[in-house]
Structures are given as structure tokens and as C-alpha cells.
């Protein structure tokens, strides 16, 4: 269960305070596929970053399976990110110096586990995303779609409780986007909790629930079926 209680976020730029999110309260059950939509600058990515522990709220509380993400030390938050959250970025954020296999294994390498011990798991994940022939390739040798698939495999390596995706197809062509959507749907069908930020309504259709953010406020929170009905 992921729970946000009265979460607000304000950025400071010089002497100016810029409020981005206002009193957001959401509760997401395990196994859900939540799409977060909203116009540019509405605060949807900020919301995702707060859920993933990449950023800290100015006020309010965030829990993942009852573990608080607010008001804790940086190292504790880091370990939660490492072990309980998988992240898929719009620009993939793969390390150019590592091969596909090493990029996927990176969160476990951070744990101190040698690559030899996680090799089979990495190979399985890369097979799962259809990159069994590309394991030794470095990001520069992969297409955009392939890079994102490597990023998906990396996000799954720690068997996270929640998978966060920030515009995962925002930088891909339609064919690659389709492949990624199918992959995410399949993962959700296998029980993976997914929260995805998108501005694309077609992408949002992959989910089971749609949250809309507008000017930093929670505008709506409905089952997708209700929205499409």
C-alpha cells in the first residue's frame, strides 16, 4: 500500500517560493496500475519523485507499505529507493560506461552483490524485455526503444514493490512506445504495482486508475473504467 497524506511541495528559487503541489492525499493498493496525467508544469513528475523518494515533501507524509518516506535520513531513504522502488525515466538514464547487462544489475551491484551471482537473473530480465541478444551492448549501441527496455529490466531487478515510470515513452517512436505499453501491461498483469506519469491519454489507458493533477492540486482520482464510461 502506498499512501500520501496532505503532501505539499514548494521549491525555492532565490528569495521566491514556488508551490508545486498542494495537500495531495492518495492511497494506492498493491497490484494497481495508476496513470497520472496533467498539463506540463502541473506537478505530476514532482508527485512521482516524492513517491519514489527521489525528492522530499515540504509537508505531509508518504508511506510505502507503512514505511515512512518523509522525515527520514538520506541513507535510509536511499535504501528504500534501492530495494523497494523501481524507476523508469523518460530519458532512460542508463550509464553509458556500462553494458546493458551491467546497467540492469546496477542496483544489486550497489548492494555489493557480484555480477556473477545475479547474472542469471539479469539474463532472465533481459530475455523478458526481448534483449537477450544485446546483453553486452553499451547504451550508445542501442536504439531508444531498446534503451528503455534495458531501463525497465533494471527497474525490476530488485523485485520492487512499486514501479514508477516518468513519461516512459516520451522519447520514443510509436512502435517502440507500443512495445513498452504492452510490457508494462504484462508486468501489471503479473501483479506488479505501477505508477506512470504521462501526458498521453493513449498511454494512460494502459492503467487501471487515472489520477489527474492540475496546478498542483488533485483534480480527479477515478477508476479508468469510470473515466472511459
Amino acid at each position, binding site marked *: 500500500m502506498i499512501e500520501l497524506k496532505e503532501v505539499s511541495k514548494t521549491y525555492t528559487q532565490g528569495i521566491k517560493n514556488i508551490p508545486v503541489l498542494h495537500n495531495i492525499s492518495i492511497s494506492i493498493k498493491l497490484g494497481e496500475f495508476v496513470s497520472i496525467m496533467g498539463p506540463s508544469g502541473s506537478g505530476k513528475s514532482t508527485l512521482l*519523485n516524492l513517491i*519514489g523518494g*527521489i*525528492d522530499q515533501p515540504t509537508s505531509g507524509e508518504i508511506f510505502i507499505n507503512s514505511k515512512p518516506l518523509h522525515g527520514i535520513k*538520506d*541513507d535510509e531513504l*536511499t*535504501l528504500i*529507493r*534501492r*530495494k523497494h522502488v523501481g*524507476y523508469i*525515466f523518460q*530519458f532512460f*538514464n*542508463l*550509464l553509458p*560506461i*556500462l553494458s546493458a547487462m*551491467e546497467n540492469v544489475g*546496477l*542496483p544489486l*551491484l*550497489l*548492494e*555489493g*552483490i*557480484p*555480477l556473477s551471482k545475479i547474472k542469471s537473473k539479469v539474463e532472465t530480465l533481459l530475455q523478458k524485455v526481448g534483449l537477450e541478444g544485446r546483453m553486452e551492448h553499451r547504451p550508445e549501441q542501442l536504439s531508444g526503444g531498446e534503451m528503455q527496455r534495458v531501463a525497465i529490466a*533494471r527497474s525490476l531487478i530488485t523485485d520492487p514493490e512499486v514501479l514508477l515510470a516518468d513519461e516512459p515513452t516520451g522519447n520514443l517512436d510509436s512502435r517502440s512506445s507500443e512495445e513498452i505499453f504492452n510490457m508494462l501491461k504484462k508486468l501489471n498483469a503479473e501483479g506488479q504495482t505501477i505508477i506512470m506519469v504521462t501526458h498521453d491519454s493513449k498511454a494512460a489507458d494502459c492503467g487501471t486508475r487515472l489520477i489527474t493533477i492540475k496546478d498542483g492540486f488533485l483534480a480527479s482520482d477515478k477508476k479508468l473504467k469510470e473515466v472511459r464510461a
Partner: protein
Amino acid sequence: MSILNFFRYISLRHIRFQKTQSIVVLLSICLGIATIVSITIVNRSVLYSYEDTFNKMLGRSSLQISGPETGFPENLVDKVLKVPGVEYAAPVIETQGILIGAKEHSIMILGVDVLQDNQIRDYSISGESADIPDPLLFLAKPGSILIPRSLAESEKIEIDQDVQIQTVYGIQKFRVRGLLNPEGPAKAVGGNIAVMDIFAAQMAFGKEARIDRIDIGLYRGTDIEEVQHHLEKTIPQGYKITTPAGRTKQVQKILSSMQSNIDLIGYISIIVGMYLIYNAVSITVVRRKKEIGILRALGATRSQIIKTFLGEHIIIATVASALGVALGILFAKAAVGAVGEIISSMYMRTSVSEIKIYWADIFSGFAAGILATLIASLIPAFSTANITPILAIRSVPYSEEKMLTARTVRMVSILLVFLSIVLLIFYKATKFFPVFHNKSIIFLSVTAILVGISLSTTDFLRWVLTFFQRFILPLFSGSPRLAGLNLQKNISRNAVAVAAVFYSIAIFVSSAGFMYSIKESILSYTDSVVRGDILVTSGHPLSVGSQNIPMPVELGKEIEKIPGVLSADPFRKTYIDYSGKRVVLLTVDVARRLEYSPFMFAQGTHDEMVKLLPHNDAAVVSEGFASHFNVVPGDTITLSTPQGPVPFHVVAIIVDYMSDVGSVLVDIDTYQRHWGDMLAETFSVRVKPGESINTVQEAIMKKFGANRKLFVLSGREFKEESRKLIDQTFIMHYAVNIISMIIACFGIIVALLASVLERTREIGILRSIGMLRSQVSRVVMLESVILGISGGVLGSLTGVLLGWISLDGFYRVDYGASIAYYIPYMYVIWAIIISAGLATLAGLYPAHRAAKTNIVEALNYE
């Protein structure tokens, strides 16, 4: 465990993929360490060579008695033998000769008592006469010597062959009676030694009835200190009773004054290297900010990131330090011979052909590299802790995370410069703060001013760029404008490159300033003191001992008989012990010499000197002596003579640069009376008006050249030799300076490479809209030159100031206040030209890289 994964998958990859940067950082650490290690090894080797020579020469003796360099009466041996506990007392002559063969070869002459010396030193011979129990017995025949087998082989000398040796009384023949095996004294001074009977040595080297040393052996179980105490009571004051360890300490003292300056420059090159490492790590942090963000987002902790950055550079530092140590050994091997020669000609004879390596030196050099890297990496590595995942992921434009704000840096800079000034005031106010009048305060002041000004390089670069934009840019159009803007964009990082150049140039100009001042002062002193038309010596005219064999003072009278010679005045220079320090004792015929060759007076007058010195127990002292021993005219100083201590009335203080400890000058008549030494090193010959100097030179050579090896130089030639010797003395300084400049050059390369890489996209855009490769290249080159000249100008200005402080603190204290400071204008101009030139060279590679940027790839560069 996880940190190992980090090293393996992140750090090592970066080292591999960023070869150029890694190599540049590696080379700079390597060069810095090589400099320090080579200096240490050379120092150690020279010291070891002295120690080794002493140990071999002193054999099993427990104590030595030494007196004035001129020797002391041999009857002192009998007194020593009567001291309880003394088993034997072996008299020794230890002097220099020149073996005249195909090549002239300076050798040590060891004159020993053939009947008892085997109790102290080991001699053995092999071959035909190996069954002779004591090889010294061969020396009983007059004119006999023993030489080491190695010397015989190198000079192709055989047993029973006559060899020629330059002695005080000219070239004499000696017969080689045996070849010594390489043990004991035969191994001293690299085997360049000849052993002869003490009587023969006394006769040949002008020490009749005198000896140089008594080596004492004690009965087993005797307390050395007790014997030492008895000896002090038995022998006259002014003699030195030392243990072998005591002599080593003396050498250490002598060498330390020469080497402290070279050490200083060596450490500065490490500081320059540290700046470079700091810059390289800072640049790495900025460049890898996105990567750090990703790693943090994926769960890497702050400490993991910090450790990774530190670890990466420690890996490089480990390799670099290992290479630096190896390179340092090579440098030392190349330099040790030259340094040994310089020390031999300046201080005392040694033969250092091999280097002596101690594990402790290797380890400390290695550790210095790691430690310097660790210190230099700390601030930038810790700045990674400020990088949050969100900053990287949101692709916020890069801004360098600073732990120190510009204001803090400026404050520290001002404080350090202020501290330096306060220290200087304390140092100068001798009357009020005598405790602060020492070299450590000057060292601190110099360091504070260097670090203080280096911290102001950001502001200085900003001014330079403003000047560039206002006054230089209008002369250009187009692309040069970009250079100023680019430098402005990352000003604090570029300022670190400027600081590296600043350090090198500041030290270069400062060294040049004090070396130039010393050289000019010595040359003007030489001009004033050396007024003879011709100088006659039997060794190199400027060498102290190893090459210069004195001549009988009577030779002067013989020279005066040559047609055209007006006068030939003797000059003798020896060393005496004064208050535990080795001071120079100068001797001239004061009345005659002062007729044509005035001394430079700091206190006192020419008339007083002429009136009071001849035939009297009066002396003049150098400024250095006066300052070291707090002596003023009117005081009485007690000098050790072979007859015991004699009080001398101080008449005046003169300018003299012969010794860093100080010198004392007495009239030759007084000298001969007290020291019983009838020798002279040099004759200053005046030629009658209208006579040709060349003709007289040739006539002197013709008359005496066959019988002795003579240097007959005109005054002009002598001054030229002086100039060469001074340049030779400072050669190590220049070598170390060049190394620190090369490291500074690497600093510019690192800064520019980072700048080019960061601007990949920008360069791509500029190229796509029509900027030529040559224009891109020119912008980068111009940036490099601006950085180089900024560092060069600031370094030169600071160097001029440092030169003055160094001269005052490191030299005036030793040599006297009369050394004038000459601003080295030509060196300043050269320093700026060199910094611009080196910067141009440093800019070549980054410019080439920038120019060949692929437009399509650059436009997609994230």
C-alpha cells in the same frame, strides 16, 4: 563489498574511458613524486657516500681528534697515548692529490703510520704478494704507495710502475708497491685513493711534523665518554674530539643548507600537482553530475559516491606514485653524479656514482603521492554529497556545487596575505622579537603569501577577462569573443588552472630573483676584490678542496722573478672550527693586497684594516659571521690554532660571500705565526704597466707548468669561471622549476579538455551554423593563452616579492645584509613568454579535440 563493485563497474570504467584525463592526472602526480623522491635519494646517496667514506677511513677507531685544516703538531699523539683507556693513537694525513695519467684524476691521499695502522684499518692485497701479512710494510721503502685494484685497472697501472702525483711541491713520482683489495679504505671515495707512509705524505704535502687527525682505539670495556672527558683535559682547546656519528651529523649540517632550497621547490611542485588533482576531480564531479544523480536515484548512498570519487583518484595516485618512485630513481641516477661533483667542488670531496635507496624513502614518496591526492580530492569529492537525485534527473543546468563560497575564499585569501605580512614584520623587528628571526618564519610567510594569492586567482582572472573584453576584444571580430565568455562561464574552475601556472611561475621568478641577486652580488664583490691581472692556482681556481692543491708560499717569490711581474700575493683559504661551526679562514698579505684591491666594508674602514691587521692578532669578519655570532668591531673572538686558542681583536666587518656560516680574515704573517702553515692556494699576480698579460701568463706556465699542474688565468677568465660555477650551483633549482612548470601545463590541459567536453553541444551548434574547424581551434587556443598569461603575470609579480623575501630570509641571514636585491626583469619577461608558450602547447590537444567534434553527435550530446 559494494564499494568494490563501485570501483569495478564505475571507477575503473571511467579511468579506462577517460584516458586522456586519467593520463594527465597520472603524469602530474608521477612527476611531482619523481621530483621529491629523486631529491631525497640524491640527498641520501650523497650523505651515504660521506658516511661510507668516513666509516672506511675511520676503521675500528672509537674516537677521532681533529684540529685546523692546516694540520697540527704530531707530538700530540704522545699526549693522547698517555690518556687512560687509550690503546692506540694512529696519526693520519688525509689530503688531496692529483694522479696524472692519461687523464687527471683527483685522489685522496691517506698517510698512515705503517707500523700500527693495521690496528685500525683493514688492508689486504691479492696476487703475487698475497702471503705478506701486512701490506703496509710495502710502504717502508721511500716513495711507495698502495692503490686500490679498481683504480689500477681503470688507469692501467701495474705493480712496481711509477705514477705521477701532483703534490704541494709539484709533480712527484711514486712507485705502486701493491694493489689493495676492495675493502676498508680502498673502497672509500669510490676507490680513488692512494695510501702512503705518513712521513712521505707530510713531506709531499707541506705538512712537515704535522698531522690532520688522530684515530684512537680504546681498550675493551673502556667508557668512551670518560676517555673523551680525559682527552678534553689533556689536549689544547680548539681541537675537536668526535665519534663517527658526530662526523656524520656535521656533514648532514653542511648539506642541509644547500638542499633546503631544492626541497622547497620540490614540495611546491607537489602543491602545483595538488591543484591539478583538485581541478581534475572538480571537473569530474561536474561532468558526472548526471551519473551521480542516476546512481543516487537507484539507491547509491552519499558515502558510496564520495568513496568512489576518492577511490578512483587513489587508484590513479597509486599507479602514479609507483611510477613516480621509479621515475624518481631514474632522475636520481642521472643527477647524483652531477650533484656529487657540485658538492665536492663546493664543500668537500666525495665520490657518488651510485644511488642509495632506502625503503623508507620509497614508502614516504609513495605515501606522499597518495596523501597529496587524497587531500586534493577531499573538497570536490565531498561536494558530490550535495548532488541530489532530483537535481540530476531534472537536468538542471550545471552549476558547480561549492563547499566554499567566493566570499569565504576571498576572506581566507586576504587573511593569509595579512598573516604573511605580520610574520614578515615580526621577522624584521629583530630587536623586539629575536625569536622570530629564523628561516621557519620566512618559510611560513612565503607559504602564506603563495596560498593567499593563489586563492585570489578567481578575482584576478575576472579582472583579466574584463580587461580582455574592454581593450583586446575590440581589436578582433567574431570567434575570440567566445573565448572570454567561455572562461567567464566556469571561472572558478579555470582559476584553479591559473593558480597552477601561478605557483610555477611565482617559484620560477622568485628563484631567478634570488639567484640573479646572489650572482650579481658575488660578481660585483669579485670585481671589487679580485683586482690582480693574473691568478695562479694549482687546481680549479674556484674549487674549495678536492681539486685545489696548495702551493708553497715561497712560490710567490719565484713568480715575482718572472719579467713583467710586479707582484705575486699569496691567498690562503682554510676552514676552522668556531663555536661548533665550520667557518672560513682567509689569509692575505693585507698591506700589499689593499694597495690595489680594496675590500667592501660593512663596518670599519680601509685605513683601520691596514693599520691594525698586519703582524697583529687582529681580524676582520664577514657580515655573515658577525650576524651568526653576534660580533661587532671592537669585540674579541677566540680562534683555534694548532697551538691552542688565540684571542683576536675584531677591527672591521667586510662583505664576503665565501661561506654561508661566515669568514674571518687575518694577515698572512699572523696566520703563519699561529698556524705554522706556509702554503697558499692562489697567487694574485700584478703585471707591470705596459707589459702584456698574455706574455706574463705564458711565461708563468713555461717556468712552472712542467713541474706542476697550474691554472694561470687572467682576471677576466677568472670572473668568467666564477659565473659558470654560480650557474652550476643553481642547476638543480632550474631542473625542479621546469618540472613544476610541466605540471602546471597539465593543469591547463585538464581545465581546457573539460571545457571542450562540456561545450560539445555548443560547439556542435556553432559548427552547424558555419563555424570553421580552425575558428573552433583558435577559440580554445586563445582561452589557453589567456589562462597561461593570467597565471604568468600574477606569478611573476608575486615571484618578484617572494624573491626579495627569500633573499632576505634565506641568504642575507647567512651571507650578510649587503646582498642587494636585483629585480630580475629579463626573467619576468621570460616567465610571461614561457607561460604563454606553455599555455599554447597545452591548448594544442584540447583545441584539436574541439576542432574535430562531430556535428551530428554533438547535437545529440546530452
